[in-house]
């Protein structure tokens, strides 16, 4: 899932300082799962913003709604009735996709309440870890199921750099060396010889460097 993290209340307050009435829109997708932008967080943010403005003697009116997903036009249509003329600003609590989908659909000022972080999963309650670099061409079959693109700090495709020591990455003792993990796993699986293959220069055109990507499934398109 996409893992996101809330901006500070002060930062969001600054983004909407000129507004008198805001629509706070949550998302029922990934950001609900990672406890950053679901219905509960919408309620918490809206009330915090109101309290802050109350203190400043500049009351703020909030309208709260949470869509099933902000990354789908079908649900975006449902926002129409909430985006009234008196709404000065929309605060999106989705990932960057949701913010953009609102901006594309409505002529309203939209601000992000979250920082979109990465594609990852829950490691334990309250801890999420990055697992995928969204590079568009998966190499996990060559590396024992551990992604060197995103888990190696230098995205090395051919083994650990000189900075790997005691299983840790040179940048931080808290960061595991992806290539140590790959080596250990390949060894355990009896596949070490596979790590002798020289992985050629990667085709990054399938990653972000090819411009915004699109996936087209003609078989499911409605004519």
């Amino acid at each position: 899932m996409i893992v996101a993290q809330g901006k500070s209340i002060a930062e969001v307050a600054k983004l909407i300082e000129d507004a008198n009435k805001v629509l706070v829109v949550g998302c029922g997708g990934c950001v609900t799962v990672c406890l950053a932008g679901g219905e509960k967080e919408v309620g918490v943010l809206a009330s915090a913003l109101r309290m802050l403005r109350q203190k400043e003697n500049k009351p703020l009116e909030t309208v709260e709604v949470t869509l099933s997903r902000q990354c789908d036009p079908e649900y975006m249509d449902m926002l129409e009735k909430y985006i009234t003329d008196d709404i000065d600003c929309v605060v999106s609590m989705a990932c960057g996709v949701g913010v953009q989908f609102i901006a594309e659909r409505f002529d309203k000022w939209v601000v992000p309440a979250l920082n979109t972080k990465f594609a990852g999963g829950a490691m334990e309650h309250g801890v999420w870890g990055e697992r995928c670099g969204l590079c568009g061409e998966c190499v996990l079959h060559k590396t024992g199921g551990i992604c060197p693109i995103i888990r190696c700090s230098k995205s090395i495709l051919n083994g650990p750099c000189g900075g790997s020591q005691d299983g840790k990455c040179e940048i931080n003792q808290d960061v595991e060396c992806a290539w140590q993990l790959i080596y250990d796993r390949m060894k355990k699986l009896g596949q070490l010889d596979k790590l002798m293959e020289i992985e050629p220069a990667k085709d990054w055109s399938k990653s972000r460097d090819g411009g915004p990507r699109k996936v087209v499934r003609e078989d499911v398109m409605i004519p």
Partner: protein
Amino acid sequence: MKSGSRLEKLFEQGEFVVSGEIGPPKHSNPAIIKEHAKMLKEYVDAANLTDNQTAIVRISSIASAVHVLGEELEPIIQMTVRDRNRIGIQSDLLGAASLGVKNVLCLSGDHQSFGNHPTSKNVHDLDSIQLVAALKQMRDDKQFVCGEEMKESEPQFLIGAVANPFGDPFEYRVMRLEKKINAGADFIQTQCIFDMERFERWMDMVRERGLHKKAKIVAGLMPLKSHKAARYMNKNVSGMIVPDSIIERMEKAEDPKAEGVQICVEQIQHLQKMEGIAGVHIMAVAWEEIIPTIVEKAGLYPRPKVS
């Protein structure tokens, strides 16, 4: 001859080569590079010019190499994959070749979080092994990475790569060295050796695989100035091990700098006897002026002539 560089010729002659290292300054005045080149030219066969060492902005390795060439010392330019994509790298390599550079050392580069621009965006379009392969493809196949043919004058580089016998996973270090050699590395410079016992174990594996016969292995050394520096490196420099015995020896020394030189000289004498070691690379970071003393004391002066 692949490059016709002095370094390559000396390797071919079977000489025990000596290379040094010059760290370019963090400003645009090349005086210190020229000064160090003058000082080293009689004592080393070639000198590395570091490429934004520790991710700190400095005069580029290629520009520095030109200053060094002006002093009649042979440069080895370092090229990291941290700061440039394959277009920038190949362009810079063509530029370097056009300016008379004949030796290139391929590296990943220290992570940018250690340098003076920790908020910068790193590149890592290629990794260091892919860079070695790219250089070989340019030189031997006269092709760019994309496969397009070079119309004329392909760069004639002696290709260097690095190995760190002190990094982990230890057993994989030799496999990775073999990958670098298979990718096209002609010579290898190692990380600074302090833990000689671990280095010997690594060399055993290198010899078992016959890698010393496929590429020239040059052992990296660093003269210590004080026990504090030794302790600091052991603790803070990634992929470096300084054994307690060396730290203690430095601590007990009356003249720590002289002791540092003595340790380095002993290491050279030990390495000269080790099968498969083709030379030493002396990295006297911010202490370049000590290199001539070390070379003389180790009995490696004067340097051999190219026949």
